[in-house]
């Protein structure tokens, strides 16, 4: 029906529609532009230029955070937050370093097992949030502690191993395209786009805009919320799997999980998703994640002490949220400042 009305529109209208569409994607486009500019500077300052191996390393690092940021996007869209993504990431990393080993069949079963555990973690979050009627931020703070505890039990000391052929396959590049980027594209095409177009995906946006109104309109609120958390768990598990392939081992480090949780929120915000829910996209978060990671790379090429990385990441975060404050300049009614 929308397609029919779009073709029936006169030309001027369609330009209007395009402008509208661009405005809706402004956050994503801004993230893409910032990333492109930063990466261009990075490539220009890099003495050997942008070789395939440099791009591959950058892609692997970026894809890890990008997957976790995609995971974070879904709960944020429904107006929640998932503070357990980093713990699920670490838990699945530790699990993968135990079970993604052996022959092709065992490895495949191991991969399925790791993804299933991520999904289950997400479902547990969703079920507690929906049926327990508790705040997502507190629930996931608590379940995150549990998941991290389990990760420690699986791997008290860093170590373990992984199927080397598969790990090599997932961390090299084909004709200049890193497989981690292919994995990201696959996650977008196979998970994000079908989700975005599904009834429950649209329901997620409705819930984020106004849960009460969505509920009154007969939107399946409970199912949509559980699905959002479940997919967040699944995407975190994919990231955990990729981490195992990159490091060939598992490690239960609290700092790692916290770092990814926090940076994922930053990536989501830089990617143009509103923390109040209801608008944004996982694609923006991917570029947000790459922006966050390129900050670190830029410090290296500009020969700035890498211990200063948190300072610069923090400043980028503060800058990104302060950009949103520009709306204060053209606010008409001061009452709009307050919720």
């Amino acid at each position, binding site marked *: 029906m929308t397609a029919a009305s779009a073709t029936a529109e006169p030309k001027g209208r369609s330009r209007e529609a395009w402008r509208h569409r661009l405005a809706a994607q402004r956050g994503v486009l801004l993230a893409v532009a910032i990333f492109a500019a930063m990466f261009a500077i990075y490539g220009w300052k890099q003495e050997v230029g942008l070789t395939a191996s440099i791009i591959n390393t950058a892609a692997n690092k970026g894809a890890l955070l990008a997957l976790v940021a995609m995971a974070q996007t879904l709960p944020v869209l429904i107006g929640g*937050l998932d503070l357990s993504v980093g713990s699920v990431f670490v838990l699945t990393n530790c699990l993968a370093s135990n079970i993604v080993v052996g022959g092709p069949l065992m490895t495949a079963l191991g991969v399925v097992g790791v993804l299933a555990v991520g999904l289950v973690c997400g479902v547990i979050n969703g079920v*507690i949030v929906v049926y*327990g*009627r*508790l*705040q997502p*931020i*507190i*629930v996931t*703070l*608590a*379940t*995150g*502690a*549990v998941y*991290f*505890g*389990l990760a*420690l*039990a699986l791997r*008290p000391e860093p170590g373990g191993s992984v199927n080397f052929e598969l790990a090599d396959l997932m961390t090299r590049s084909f004709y200049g395209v890193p497989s981690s980027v292919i994995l990201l594209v696959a996650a977008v095409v196979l998970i994000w786009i079908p989700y975005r177009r599904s009834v429950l995906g649209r329901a997620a946006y409705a819930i984020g805009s106004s*849960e*009460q109104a969505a*509920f009154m309109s007969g939107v399946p*609120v409970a199912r949509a919320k559980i699905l959002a958390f479940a997919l967040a768990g699944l995407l975190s598990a994919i990231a955990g799997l990729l981490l195992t392939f990159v490091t060939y081992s598992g490690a239960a480090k*609290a*700092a790692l999980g*916290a770092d990814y949780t*926090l940076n994922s*929120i*930053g990536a989501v*915000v830089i990617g143009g998703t509103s*923390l*109040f829910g209801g608008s944004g996209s996982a694609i923006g978060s991917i570029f947000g994640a790459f922006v966050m990671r390129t900050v670190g790379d830029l410090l290296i090429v500009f020969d700035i*002490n890498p*211990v*200063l*990385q*948190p*300072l*610069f*990441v*923090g*400043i980028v*975060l*503060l800058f990104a*949220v*302060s950009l*949103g*404050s520009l709306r*204060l300049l053209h606010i008409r009614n*001061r*009452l709009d*400042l*307050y*919720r």
Partner: protein
Amino acid sequence: MSVLTYAIQGLDRATVIAFGCVVLLLAGGALIEPNFLSADYVVQQLQVASFLGVIATGIMLVMLLGHIDLSIPWTIAIGGMMATGAAGILGPTVGVPLAIPFGIACGAAIGLVNGFGVAYLRAPAMIFTLGMNAVAQGLMVFHTGGFAPQDRATALMREIAVGRFIPGVPNPLLVWLALGAVTIFLLTRTTLGRQIYAIGNKERAVFLSGVDTRRVLLFCFVASGACAAAGGVLLAGWANRSYQAMGDPYLLPTIAAIVLGGTNVLGGRGTYLGTVAGVILITLLQSILSVLQPQFWFAELGLKIPAETFRQVVFGIVIIVMLLLYGRERASR
């Protein structure tokens, strides 16, 4: 009797349940380890609890507003590191006597930036304070990066953290009692306290009532930074030194304690007495886990599980179970 019923009616359900759990924990612990009920043990636990209590006080104010302060870990570290480093920064003559105020002031400065971002730039508190946490971390790394800083606590800091001004009562407990009394007075007896609860319910309505809500927000964030830094000063005095990441283990317990005490994460509801109960509950839980050492039971079964696993898992489960008891929201209808 009537006084007792009045007192109980004045308490909300969360506070009663949290205090009930404290009693249960003590009783359950005493069955296994009789020392649990000794005065020494209880006083020692209260001393440990007062560090968490001081930190939680400021963040509770922010949570009553419906915001959150995720910059606590490195604000704690700033408090400790700046207090111990004051002699090096301000010079020994000024730095030693002013070490404690200097540390707290640095934490308040972090809170000031947080408050400015949230109140005046209207940035989401979650992400703004997260960014400030990273900035604070970066500043501290920068501070220690170039040279070995002075990291010893001054004699006064040490005395406040471990000494006993009144025999049998640890000094940090006195600090917490004083801070708590001021906070209870602030929340229940002053207009500012009323405004804090009101903003947590509906900031718009408070603004329309003629209150500059932004100033209230700013105040609470500054208080949060100052309290976290004061906690850092106490911790540095207790350990006799300060170090990076000294605040990292405190984020989860602090928020858990406040929430277990019945403060609503969305703001507007919660009592300080509840937070006190939550802080004691969390401290006891940690202590009992370290006394019981469940890892050895599993080791006998042939499972090697680190102690930290039990701490994390029990923590998470307790928070969720307690909240299911009294933290649920109304069903949408």
